[in-house]
């Protein structure tokens, strides 16, 4: 914003030097006396070649800002002093001129690549069409350019790829096609709206690398919208933090992420699970996003701020704390999230008694023919997995999408019937499907799903949702049942008054708490958590993880915790299993798995996680599909030894400390390579 002031003084000539200027942008939705004021007075500038990260949680208005720049917001009330692209005001431009600008000078990459592509055209044709229209290229010239572009976004075999339809590509490939389309006309400005959300970390790493590379080669400015601070740290030069529609902090990325000045930014950073703070509770920002129909006159963050004071009832000024680093806060010292170092994890020594759950040689194959069962045709979603969970402990299963981790969870829950192998609960054999299990066995195993939206019946009240398992597994009725429901709601820190509400009247975090309450209503001994926080914001995730850890300590429950987020896994797990293409590749304590020597696949996963300090680790693997012969990972492996890897699947070998690896390379060799 100081930049803005300087520019006003130096006059209009300098203005053209900025690629994008947004001055006092406000967006509101709905009419009537109290419209939803989604974005208020946001000003920012992006210099040529600069990458600007706009971060914020869901509902903060970051996507609205991007759409307003593209002038895609119909039905919203958009006001701004100025939104200009290379000095040309987009706000007052006729729609006809605007269409020339979209795609040619500013292009957008959306979060969901599949919805941005036309399913009935080949991906090559879609981009060729853009080139013919905007660039007036001939049919053959456009096609040559498409093949060239596909090469630049590192799609394997570009000329064959261009002839495919969107559904024939993987998620990462689709996103690369969308990026190719965005850069086709060499725009000055790329707007990327959460381009890697929903992709695996390894795919994300490849896309981020690509964006960095393209920035250099085409020199475009980037407006990068994300909720993932690590991603922004890796991609952006400057970053703006958006909270409830207001820019509350802005500055060079290193400075903002290492020395956050605003209490909200500090809180967000503290909410990220870190390996070094494994024994502590995560910092969760209390409260929830304010109602933007009634925007207070003072600081918007005040109700949730630990540092709130009397002055906060007036709008805080924008102050510069370091070169180019500004904050909108009354506090004159850097905020630190009050990190109460509450210890947790009274880690029980890995007990040697009967495991709560044993998974023995479990396989789940799909297809392969019903009459003539040909094993070679079957998709081996889960292949010969043996694992166990001790009482009160957490076994985490990590892997990319398609690794079979969710299939394994559904087999344990009895929702899928395994092809081979068996399950033991407290040493007793467990029937394969839930229908054939006894009431006590059904009660013992409960499930928490990834998406709270879809796992709650919209027609059931909170009371019905939590009360149902109580009714099913106990004799509590009437007043006793109601008392138990209130008790369960209070355990997950939901108010008793929620009992009569419907799920739609609750926030995402509250819904997931409700799902936890439903699972614990059964008094289970094992809870399967299938990506319980991946649909939630970071600050909400922290609260949910704290909740799960607390409940585990209180009730001695075992968790089978499925996740693709290594930081989360590191925070909650007592033991970690790494799966790839249905196979178990590594198993051990978090310390064993997350430090060398580890399996080359684990190594690749860890290297792909974008780090807050922006340090990048070299990527070793090549992105290809899993192999059907030999080691499942050999085609991607960066540590491939030789022919043995191509022909023989290595057995899982366990060392004396209990660390198991399925790799032909001996542990000491891996140790040397990875140190």
């Amino acid at each position, binding site marked *: 914003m100081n930049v803005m002031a300087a520019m006003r003084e130096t006059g209009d000539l300098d203005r053209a030097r900025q690629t994008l200027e947004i001055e006092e942008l406000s967006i509101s939705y709905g009419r009537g006396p109290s419209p939803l004021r989604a974005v208020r007075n946001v000003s920012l500038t992006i210099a040529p070649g600069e990458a600007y990260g706009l971060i914020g949680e869901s509902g903060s208005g970051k996507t609205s800002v991007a759409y307003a720049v593209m002038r895609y917001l119909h039905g919203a009330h958009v006001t701004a002093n100025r939104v200009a692209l290379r000095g040309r005001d987009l706000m007052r431009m006729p729609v006809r001129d605007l269409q020339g600008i979209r795609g040619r000078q500013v292009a957008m990459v959306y979060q969901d690549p599949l919805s941005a592509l036309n399913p009935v055209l080949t991906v090559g044709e879609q981009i060729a069409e853009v080139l013919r229209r905007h660039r007036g290229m001939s049919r053959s010239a456009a096609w040559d350019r498409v093949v060239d572009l596909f090469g630049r976004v590192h799609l394997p075999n570009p000329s064959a790829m261009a002839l495919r339809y969107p559904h024939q590509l993987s998620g990462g490939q689709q996103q690369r096609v969308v990026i190719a389309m965005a850069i086709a006309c060499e725009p000055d400005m790329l707007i990327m709206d959460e381009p890697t959300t929903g992709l695996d970390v390894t795919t994300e790493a490849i896309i981020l690398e690509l964006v960095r590379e393209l920035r250099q080669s085409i020199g475009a400015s980037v407006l990068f919208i994300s909720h993932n601070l690590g991603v922004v740290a890796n991609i952006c030069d400057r970053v703006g933090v958006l909270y409830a529609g207001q820019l509350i902090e802005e500055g060079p990325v290193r400075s903002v992420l290492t020395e956050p000045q605003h209490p909200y930014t500090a809180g967000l950073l503290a909410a990220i699970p870190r390996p070094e703070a494994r024994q502590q509770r995560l910092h969760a920002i209390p409260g929830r996003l304010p109602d933007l129909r009634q925007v207070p006159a003072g600081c918007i963050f005040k109700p949730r701020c630990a540092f709130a004071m009397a002055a906060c009832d007036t709008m805080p000024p924008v102050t510069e704390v370091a070169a180019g680093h500004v904050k909108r806060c009354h506090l004159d010292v850097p905020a630190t999230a009050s990190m109460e170092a509450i210890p947790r994890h009274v880690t029980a020594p890995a007990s040697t008694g009967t495991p709560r759950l044993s998974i023995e040689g479990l396989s789940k194959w799909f297809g392969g023919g019903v009459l003539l069962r040909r094993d070679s045709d079957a998709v081996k979603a889960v292949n010969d997995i043996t694992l166990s969970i001790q009482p009160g402990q957490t076994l985490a299963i990590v892997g990319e999408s398609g690794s079979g981790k969710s299939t394994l969870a*559904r087999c344990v*829950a*009895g*929702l899928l019937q395994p092809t081979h192998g068996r399950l033991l609960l407290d040493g007793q054999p467990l029937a394969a499907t*839930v*229908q054939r*299990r006894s*009431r006590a066995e*059904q*009660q013992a*195993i*409960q*499930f928490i*799903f*990834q*998406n709270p939206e*879809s*796992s*709650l*019946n*919209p*027609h*059931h009240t909170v009371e019905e949702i939590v009360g*149902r*398992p109580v009714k*099913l597994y106990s004799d509590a009725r009437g007043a006793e049942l109601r008392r138990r429901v209130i008790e369960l709601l209070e355990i997950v820190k939901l108010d008793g008054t929620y009992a009569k509400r*419907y*799920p*739609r009247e609750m926030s995402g975090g509250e819904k997931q708490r409700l799902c936890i309450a*439903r699972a614990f209503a*059964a008094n289970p001994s094992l809870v399967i958590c299938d990506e319980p926080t991946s649909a939630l914001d970071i600050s909400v995730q922290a609260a949910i993880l704290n909740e799960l850890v607390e409940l585990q300590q209180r009730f001695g429950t075992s968790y089978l915790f499925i996740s693709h987020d290594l930081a989360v896994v590191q925070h909650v797990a007592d033991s970690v299993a790494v799966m790839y293409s249905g196979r178990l590749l590594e198993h051990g304590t978090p310390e064993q798995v997350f430090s060398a020597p580890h399996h080359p696949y684990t190594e690749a996963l860890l290297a792909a996680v974008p780090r807050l300090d922006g340090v990048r680790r070299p990527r070793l693997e090549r992105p290809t599909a899993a192999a059907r012969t030999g080691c499942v990972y050999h085609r991607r492996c960066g540590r491939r030894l030789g022919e043995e890897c191509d022909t023989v699947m290595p057995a899982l070998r366990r060392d004396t400390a209990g660390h198991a690896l399925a790799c032909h390379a001996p542990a000491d060799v891996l140790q040397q390579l990875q140190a």
Partner: protein
Amino acid sequence: MRQAIALRARSSVAPADLVAIGFAVLIAVAVVLGPVIAPYSPTTFHPEYALQPPSLQFIFGTDEFGRDIFSRVLSGARPTLVVAFSSALVGVTLGTTTGLIAGLAGGVVDEVVMRFMDALMSFPALILSMLVVVMLGTNPVNVVVALGIVFWPRSARLVRSVAVELAKRDFVDAARSRGEGWLYLLGRELLPNVQMIVVVDLSLRITYGVLLAASLAYLGIGVAPPTPAWGLMVRDGQQFIEIAPWIVVFPCLAVALTAVGTMIVGERLRRGVTLPGGERLR
């Protein structure tokens, strides 16, 4: 609660609602009070007044036996609508149950059940209902059964298409993994989520029920002559169409207006319905 208020507030403003409410009231009055408010007996012969054109005394005119058409049309509302409503209820109940089971079970059950439904649907509605009535014996109860069978596969298809999507949602898996039985899954997890669609479907089936009941009566199936059924009145009156067109025109108008009326009420319901979670029914 809040939703119910919102629904009421919305329906009190739009003029389309007044039309819908007007039709609903008109039809209800005819069904409940028809025979009471009819000025003359619908069945007694008055040869001295045969084939009178509409006048102040007989506003819709009289037929060849001197019966007042207005009284006959009013009295005809009840048999027609009772048949239409009951058959819609039978068909939609069968269809909802079948659709929910097929959608939840999936796989072979879905395939077998829905192919049977397709087979049933491949018969033209009128021919199928005629066949059933002729086979079972021609009386109003069997007309209801016949029309119910006609509506069954249509309703089943609609409900199944929604149930298939619902069955993929995690709350169904959550209930399954708790060890809930089939009845609970169908009745408590799926049914509440299709209830509004079912209500709208019901109103649509009533419309078709009115048309089909009139068609069957016109063909002389299910009702015997003295009964003042609209279809039957058209059938008997058509021989006089050149000298006394009012005998045919007014029952036809009654059928058309009732069909349009129930359609408008249904359409209004469909647009007024807000699904839980805020999404609107298409």
